[in-house]
């Protein structure tokens, strides 16, 4: 066959290929800006693991100081350094999860990350089963998911926390439960689309097992949209953690939590306005960054597919 081979025999290395797929991000200005915002907070988080300007939980300073040379962003109503608290606030969201019990053990990966991973695992499993098997499987799974979706998200959080109490694991569970229906719906619609393809027929005519078809034939082709969705979900999760913290039922103290910082500073809003601004900005920029990144990525991916 006289087909010109674009690579002329030399196959690009794995790294080159990976770079090529990553490079899509930089095609989109929106995604690049979003990524920069997320990376900024990740970097802050990693720095805070080894260094913060002051002890985050210690009331070492005068209360309600405006920004100054020592306390770059001022102090809060208990005289704690806001800069240090803000920096450490990234940890519980993105970098570590405290295990229940009195032990001081933490596992890597923040509450938001584990929550999203949880909803991905649960949602994808349910969604693939509903979408690929169809029939009664679909009816029953969707009915259950519909019931979950019918709960206003925050009511579900409140109910879960009212029932199980506060804690990192509870928040992860709450995020998992509220996120799973959305993931499942997406996975289901992707599975329903993909299962009409002829390569699924080919697998069926080979007598492949249902599990093989769902996880080996369908799932790899659904990963693009699922990844973009997961990115958005990390944003939602941070959003939710912030909201829970703000409502005073989020991650337990003593480690600083942005939402809770806003909540506490709000009570002193007339005497100290800066204290409420910083954590608010932090949450907003991180969530917006993730959204921008996901949005730009999605746009770029659909363009790429065209």
């Amino acid at each position, binding site marked *: 066959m*006289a*087909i010109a081979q674009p690579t002329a025999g030399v196959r690009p290395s794995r790294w080159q290929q990976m770079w090529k797929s990553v490079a899509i991000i930089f095609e989109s200005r929106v995604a690049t800006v979003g990524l920069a915002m997320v990376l900024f907070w990740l970097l802050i988080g990693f720095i805070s693991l080894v260094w913060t300007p002051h002890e985050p939980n210690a009331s070492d300073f005068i209360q309600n100081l405006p920004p100054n040379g020592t306390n770059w962003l001022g102090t809060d109503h208990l005289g704690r350094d806001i800069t240090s608290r803000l920096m450490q606030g990234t940890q519980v969201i993105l970098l570590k999860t405290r295990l229940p019990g009195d032990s001081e053990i933490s596992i890597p990966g923040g509450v938001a990350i584990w929550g999203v991973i949880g909803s991905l695992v649960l949602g994808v499993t349910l969604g693939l089963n509903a979408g690929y098997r169809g029939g009664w499987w679909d009816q029953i799974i969707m009915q259950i998911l519909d019931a979950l979706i019918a709960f206003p998200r925050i009511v579900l959080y409140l109910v879960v926390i009212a029932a199980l109490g506060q804690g990192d694991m509870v928040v992860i569970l709450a995020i998992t439960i509220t996120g799973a229906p959305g993931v499942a719906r997406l996975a289901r619609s992707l599975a329903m689309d993909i299962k009409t*393809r002829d*390569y699924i027929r*080919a697998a*069926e005519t080979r*007598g492949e097992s249902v599990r093989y078809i769902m996880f080996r034939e369908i799932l790899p082709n659904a990963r693009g949209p699922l990844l973009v969705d997961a990115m958005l979900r990390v944003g939602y999760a941070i959003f939710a953690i912030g909201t829970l913290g703000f409502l005073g039922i989020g991650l337990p103290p003593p480690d600083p939590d942005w939402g809770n910082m806003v909540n506490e500073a709000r009570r002193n809003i007339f005497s100290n306005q800066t204290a409420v601004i910083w954590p608010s900005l932090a949450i907003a920029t991180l969530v917006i960054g993730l959204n921008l990144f996901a949005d730009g990525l999605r746009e770029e991916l659909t363009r790429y597919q065209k």
Partner: protein
Amino acid sequence: MTGKQKKSPVLKVEDLAVAYKVRGGEIEAVQRVSFEINRGETYGIVGESGCGKSTVAWAIVNFLGANGYVKRGSIKFQGQELVGKSGEELRRLRGDQIAMVYQDPMQALNPSMRLGDQMKEVLTVHRGMADDEAAQHCIQMLERVYMPDAANVMRRYPHQISGGQQQRVVIAMALLNNPALLVMDEPTTALDVTVEAAVLDLIAELSRDFDTAIMYITHNLGVIARVSNRVGVMYAGEMVERGTVAKIYKNPRHPYTQGLMRCVPKLGADKAGSILHPIRGRVPPPTHRPAGCVFGPRCDYIQDKCREERPLLRDLDGIMVRCHFAEEIIASEWTPSEELALPQIEAVSSDSETILELNDLKKYYEVQGSSFKDVIGLGEKRYVKAVENANFTVAKGKTLGVVGESGCGKSTLIKTIIGLEGSTSGKATFMGFDISGDISGRDEALIQELQMVFQNPDSTMNPSYTVGQQIGRPMLRFGTVPKNQVRGEVIKLLESMRLGENYYDRLPRQLSGGEKQRVGIARALASRPNLVLCDEPVSALDVSVQAAILNLLLEVQQEFNTTLVFIAHDLSVVRFFSDEVAVMYLGQIMEIGPADAIYAPPYHPYTEALLSAVPIPDPTIQQKHIRLEGSVPSAINPPSGCRFHTRCPRRKLLPHGGKICETELPNWQITGDGHRIFCHIPAETLQTFDPVITVESD
């Protein structure tokens, strides 16, 4: 009628170049295209996909999207330059003096507006006509395009009428303002062959009555031969040849046109016309066009000059051709080069064993109604009778072709055989084992013996795995090849598909449609099956690639002594390919027998109608004019008696206008040598019909 001179062309396109701006530059999708269309003339533009045919059409109506523009050349409509006309002036021309009909009528109609409203606005906006007056006009026009129950159709929504009717509505809508130019872009491609034939008749009639100039774009050489007087052949964004249909079809001068003619099956009087010779390679994308002659890399006659210099359009006995050596190239003296050589088909001994046998196989699907009773499960159960009493045998190493229009049950038939669906009743045996249930009840060894080749090249391969992984999977799964030898076996298979070892690590998106289809065939053969079911394996491919795939299938059949069941909607493809042919209509096999017997009298009336509908790319061939009325009835409540009786053009040959057809099932009439016809009309009468296709003797 009169000796009136046709003074000026309705449309005159000169040296047109259309470019699209893309990231980092622009692509010239169309270059150096010139042609003109006269009043009342139908001008055909033919070419494979990606040749820029549609771009020309969009350029004429100046609808090239945000990033496309006419880079060079001129488009003159009725003496006025269209390039650079203001938006408002263009708007007034569109829908008034220039109208357009394109491929998918379902997409072209607004799903949430009544058809009447969509039609009326053409008149109310352009002519400022009152609403009820416009409605009257629309109904008249719908009646003019033979739309049954026109007044009622006005109140309907697009999804409530059939595809053929949708296309009639679109055509009627285009003609409402009596345009001087009608641009039609593949208007019948999405339609079934009998519906297509009726729409083509309609187009010819309208062009005559309204004196409208029609620009007819299609990939189908047969359709061009039927509707148009003159034709332009496009290849890779250029018009490589143009002239009258009669001349070009008789004696094509450009190597590409010649190649096209050789690779489309012609449903002629004899089987020899069905031998196909593919063009090697594929159409280059606009970004990778060669420097010299665009067809150079695929041309059998390529010389140095062709690589260096772009040929100009030259006049050769009234045909304009873009080739340096057109005088020296004579189509009839062409012989296939070695790589395109046709497989030698040896006659398989006819007494070989039966491998597949179906006895009264039925497949019904339960459907849910929409009444309250149905929803709560108390309604009467209704069924789509997708396959009814299928009876046939296939001998080892032979090919059975199954033909029929969409919805005739041919796909369900093979899904049932392969086990994607279980049958409702009846018996199916394969190699002596029962296969009437679905695949979950079948033995591993049996599954391995039955494989399938799929229709759509874009979805036949899993985009996430490499070619090698996908071909290797059946080997691993069935353990036909030891694990460490899989790679070698896959490469062997790739080579017999004429794909090299370097394809092993490629991903599907790096392959062309034809290559993907080859890999699909390789995957089906990987488990060394005895029977391969092919579901329209070439219908989504360009004609020049189709031929290569068909020939490849024949070759592997020889090599592996595989039995094939081959589904197609196109009678001409099946003829060359099959030993036996079955014709299906609405779930029922109407006629079955050796291929040659199907294409000659006695015909089943449906086969006869199908044959007369197929567009044949040869203007010298005469076809009987038989058109089916109405549309295919629903398979939920198929007509009683003979399922074809509602549309049968031959029914009146029977006493009492064929009353018996409505009430009683016909018997199978055996007309010798395995040829069976399912019809009430006696075989002797059927025998007296003239052949549908005759070659004009001049």
